[in-house]
């Protein structure tokens, strides 16, 4: 429990640190966000000189950071707006609230990520376990080679190849958008099927380039566990192979991978920016790019914060639930309870 509190405190501290960092980027950096924004507003006005006071107010209202206020006041303003879930207003989308945009796009990113993560782990874990059972066989060697080779391909390179060959050359999958145009969102086969169809290539880009290393780790863990005394004893005790595979080898080999799962969530959340751009997939990473292209600071920083918060919270949930899976964590440090 003590550990849980500590971990929660750390998560909150991280959120605070990221928020502060983002405030710092906006406010303090020379040529930082506030300045960029002011000059951009100035440009938009096209010649007609906006009075400095008006400019300041516009920047302040959109960024939640008042460039001219004393730093502690500005910081207070910014943080309290964040706590209320206010990320300012987007320039790109004509003053629309950033959190409305986030609410529209975040679920899609989460959907894409869950699909990729599930697919990747399903493939990697089963493949790794089979490889371990057949250690040294041709199957094992071939898959090790292929796994390393595929892991050497950056996911965006895979995406480019998929788009070119599975999207355009042989149009098996759509290469842009989140769902088929002309289909209304709702619980219909067309919509859900279409959404999966559209998510297929981006997810595959992650899966194909990511499963290899994970499978190799799983293989290594399984081989190690297969050599453990408790597996040998379990065999001599006459336990069915199925039980040994799942309850003994599987469980003990998968548990250490839980950390990999969490790390890969962070990695994918970050990587989603690139894939969403390539696939014109309107998720949160896509909007972050829009913010960058249009020099739309509130949109850019808002999406950045949400992505970061998402990862921090995901990691926190993961850590907090790990103890439920591995009995050794529960009791914490005192390894001999009595």
């Amino acid at each position, binding site marked *: 429990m003590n550990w849980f509190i500590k971990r929660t405190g*750390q*998560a909150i*501290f*991280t959120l605070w*640190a*990221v928020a502060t960092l*983002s405030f710092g*980027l906006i406010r303090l*950096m020379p*040529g*930082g*966000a506030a300045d*960029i924004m002011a000059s951009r507003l100035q440009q938009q006005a096209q010649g007609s000189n906006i009075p400095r006071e008006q400019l300041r107010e516009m920047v302040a209202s959109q960024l939640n950071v008042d460039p001219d206020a004393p730093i502690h006041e500005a910081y207070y303003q910014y943080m309290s707006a964040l706590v209320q879930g206010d990320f300012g207003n987007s320039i790109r989308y004509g003053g629309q609230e950033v959190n409305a945009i986030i609410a529209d796009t975040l679920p899609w990113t989460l959907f894409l990520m869950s699909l990729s993560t599930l697919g990747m782990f399903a493939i990697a874990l089963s493949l790794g376990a089979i490889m371990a059972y057949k*250690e040294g066989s041709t199957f094992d060697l071939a898959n090790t080679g292929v796994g*390393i*080779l595929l*892991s*050497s*391909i*950056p996911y*965006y*390179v895979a995406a*480019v190849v998929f*788009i*070119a060959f599975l*999207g*355009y*050359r042989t149009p098996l999958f759509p*290469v842009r958008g989140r769902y088929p145009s002309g289909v209304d969102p709702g619980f219909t086969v067309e919509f859900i099927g279409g959404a999966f169809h559209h998510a297929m290539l981006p997810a595959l880009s992650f899966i194909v380039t990511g499963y290899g*290393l994970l499978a*190799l780790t799983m293989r290594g863990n399984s*081989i*190690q566990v*297969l*050599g*453990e*005394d408790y*597996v*040998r004893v379990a*065999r001599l005790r006459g336990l069915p192979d199925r039980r040994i595979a799942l309850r003994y080898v599987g469980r003990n080999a998968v548990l250490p991978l839980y950390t990999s799962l969490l790390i890969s969530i*962070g*990695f994918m*959340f*970050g*990587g989603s*920016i*690139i894939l969403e*751009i390539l696939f014109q997939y309107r998720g949160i*990473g896509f909007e*972050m*790019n829009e913010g*960058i292209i249009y020099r739309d600071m509130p949109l*850019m*920083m808002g999406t*950045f914060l949400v*992505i*970061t918060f998402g*990862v*921090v919270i995901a*990691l926190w949930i993961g850590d907090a639930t790990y103890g439920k899976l591995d009995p050794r964590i529960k009791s914490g440090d005192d390894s001999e309870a009595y």
Partner: protein
Amino acid sequence: MTVKPTDDDAVKPTDGGSSSVDGSRTDGGQMFSQAEITEVTRTQRYQEWFAESIAEPFRIAWSDWRTKVGLLIIAGFLLMGLVAWISSSTWFVLERIVLVDSPIANQGSPRLQPLEDMSHPLGTDMNGRDLISGVVHATPTMIQMILAGAVFAIVVAVIVGTVAGYKGGTTETVLMTASDVAMTIPGLPLVIVLVVLIEPQSPWLIGIIITINVWAGIARTIHSQVLSLRENSYVEASRTMGIGTPTIIQKDILPNLMPYVLVNFVYASRRVIYDSVALYFLGFLSFRGVENWGVMMHLAYANASALLNPEATYMLIVPMLPIVVLSFGLMLFAQGTDRLFSPRVRTRNEGKSNTDETDEPDPMTGV
């Protein structure tokens, strides 16, 4: 009351504790040699350190095909960088030597397909720039980025990890919390934001920005490693002998961190390659010439619509090749050196055996 020598080794008169015989005896072996070293001169000490920490691991690693292929690929890549550097150097001896032309517009006819014109074997882009020139001349900046990024990440990680592990107390808490925080922030979005705001040009700076929070994960590994090393008997022995902390860190701890440093250096390098190419590819980084493979991809993608147009796809594929090949080399290298971590694997793969192993069979071979 009567105690038989319960240790296996005690029953059979030991042959000087040669650690080579038995993987599980590595620690004892190290303790032995460390104790000796304190008596010998500095030169001998470094010789021994070299033999133990560099030469021997290298020999073992080299015996693995993966390391071999990996190292060859990495060497080829460095050679490519050297070729580009010589070709573009204005230093007086090298000024006239041009092995590979610099990529400039109208080197050849635009949009030459690979193998179409053998003076441009891999073809040219829509501005007539030779693609091989582009690939080769992007290498030196890539090396700079990798060096800056990986060295930065490793140095920070080693300092944070060892200091935290060694100082303990508040220092440790602060440093490790900082690492945890930095680790949980997703790297790429942060890097993109920083790059957009800072607009860095120097490859060194770009490399460092990319690994801005990569150090954190490595620091964690090193920290836990230091903690376990610290408990080791020979480190304890040094401490009891009154040897100062900096000396212990330098002489006992750092050499043992080498494998971790090496492997993480490789992973950090891979990260720099992936991310720098992505940043150029998607246009987050501005460019002047063809200074990165990502720039070539960007030009193909944005200006030649290589995705749509089958005729231009090669412009995208060609710069992708060195990325994949190089990261394949790095991955192989990392996988091949993996065994350096495990003394058990080390002895096993050398085909050494001992009676213990056959009596209580190696668990790796399974039931």
